[in-house]
């Protein structure tokens, strides 16, 4: 398949033998994103349940403070070209795992007797990594490689953890809520962006 920067139209590819594999990969990645969207919602619900009220109460709205290395999808995200959207999706998914690990570390101290929450956080980090890698594969196959290489922000993330812990338990709870919320937003966004690539018709 010819590498065309920015080209994301599988139908324009002359290499017929690679097209079914690419379509299959896109479908598979989209299915994964859809599944993780559901898991991310469950993680968020479980998280707020174990932090106590007012977390989880309707109308609870802590300040949406910035998180190291990651922000929410911008309002104009949907208006960007699809390759750019997918690159942002991949980058966000790569930034999430160390943040989820930080949250898991906090929760291991705050809620040591809730192994299910700890397991969900651990799974979420692994799943975000997997989905990010899958999106990057799709981008590469379509000739619209993600900008990178990405390095997991381990040093700064550790510093973020230290800062959050030093600031107190309540800020650590808020950080966890923010990270779980960002995870949910980004997998949902990725699922939406990939849906535009999925060929019509049965798999």
């Amino acid at each position, binding site marked *: 398949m010819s590498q065309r920067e920015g080209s994301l139209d599988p139908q324009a590819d002359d290499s017929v033998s690679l097209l079914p594999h690419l379509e299959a990969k896109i479908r598979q990645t989209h299915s994964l994103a859809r599944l993780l969207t559901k898991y991310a919602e469950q993680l968020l619900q479980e998280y707020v349940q174990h932090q106590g009220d007012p977390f989880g109460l309707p109308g609870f709205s802590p300040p949406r403070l910035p998180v190291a290395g990651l922000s929410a999808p911008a309002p104009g995200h949907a208006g960007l070209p699809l390759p750019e959207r997918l690159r942002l999706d991949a980058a966000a998914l790569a930034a999430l795992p160390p943040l989820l690990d930080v949250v898991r570390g906090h929760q291991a101290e705050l*809620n040591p007797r809730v192994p299910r929450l700890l397991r969900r956080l651990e799974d979420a980090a692994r799943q975000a990594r997997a989905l990010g890698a899958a999106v990057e594969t799709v981008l590469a196959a379509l000739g619209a490689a993600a900008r990178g290489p990405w390095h997991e922000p381990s040093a700064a993330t550790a510093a973020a953890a230290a800062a959050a812990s030093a600031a107190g338990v309540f800020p650590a709870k808020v950080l966890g809520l923010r990270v779980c919320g960002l995870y949910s937003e980004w997998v949902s966004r990725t699922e939406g962006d990939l849906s535009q690539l999925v060929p019509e018709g049965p798999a």
Partner: protein
Amino acid sequence: MPAGRPGPAAQSARRPPPPLLPLLLLCVLGAPRAGSGAHTAVISPQDPTLLIGSSLQATCSVHGDPPGTTAEGLYWTLNGRRLPPELSRVLNASTLALALANLNGSRQQSGDNLVCHAHDGSILAGSCLYVGLPPEKPFNISCWSKNMKDLTCRWTPGAHGETFLHTNYSLKYKLRWYGQDNTCEEYHTVGPHSCHIPKDLALFTPYEIWVEATNRLGSARSDVLTLDILDVVTTDPPPDVHVSRVGGLEDQLSVRWVSPPALKDFLFQAKYQIRYRVEDSVDWKVVDDVSNQTSCRLAGLKPGTVYFVQVRCNPFGIYGSKKAGIWSEWSHPTAASTPRSERPGPGGGACEPRGGEPSSGPVRRELKQFLGWLKKHAYCSNLSFRLYDQWRAWMQKSHKTRNQDEGILPSGRRGAARGKGGPGGGSVCGGRKPCPAPSTSESLPWNPFLLLLIGIDLALTVCLACNVAGGRSSSGTTCPS
């Protein structure tokens, strides 16, 4: 991309910012930010730990831009519920104080959420309260070793249990006269307060074992348990438990099993226990002191009934240890049914006496019909139930003699017999008291077909005697002329 300006904590990050790589640290709540126009606050104390019933004095100090942001309009919530205004007071222009008395235990282990809000409800700062009790001394430590390869211990977490705080339990152990303290690492193996030591255990020397409980308010240590591994050995349940009928005996089942193979080289004696119950009952009957045998016969059971049977083992006296070991778990239930009784009456093996006339069951009706036929067709009259009852008495005597021969114990001597038993061998080792021989006024379980055959035989004998003797039989029955 992160928005806003980083707080002081964030400024400790040193890496130059490529896109989406960590630039800034989280601007945590409580860190003042300049120039943003937003208010932040600091709650003091931050994350205090308190005893149940104690009081708390807290403050929320607002930092804002422009300066002089007032504390008026601020309010507190605790676990999402707004606190009454009378608990708060304005200390100064930027500080709101709170006084809480007689605190209850924390609602969740992650801490109660005390939050300071601006007048519009937005969150300015938060602090988590930990209200609880120090741990009490753990007690009731019990340990056992599975086949002398490991040690598992269990304990009870103090008299009141609930401390409302996360309490960490640590099982410690050491050799009694030397060695360093060791800490168990595999927790919650057989329940929430348990730990498993998988290896590197010494035999023939005592260990000291204790539990330390620690939480934010203090610590407590259990009494020390001293034990030798050899004295707390248990094993897997006896394998291959088989339950079978004993020929046609309707009130007995034979139980056989194999001694646990894991201890066969450790010079131990084993004692066993059997328990059994009727299928639809929850009441187990236990047979003790089965001693060192691997079979047993249960007697006095109900005919035609499904029984569940389990066996467990106690490997005492390992390597000459004088103490009893620990009973194993019960084996998986094995089911078998006793043969159905071919005699009338409820359950066949029931021992309840019956008063009054013999019951007029279907066999008795058949016999009456038979006798009626005899009267009509065999030229014998007055062949009465007296002869029939005499025959019954003979049957009872025959039944009692058979029970004694087979070693089924009379009442009061349960569990002590060693006899050949009936078919299949093995010792009888318990069960219900066997049925006493019923009186003639009671119904007698019998085989109806055998009864008919015997009845026919007797009737023919009487008739023959009548015919031979010219009208009077030896039993006194009057024959028609």
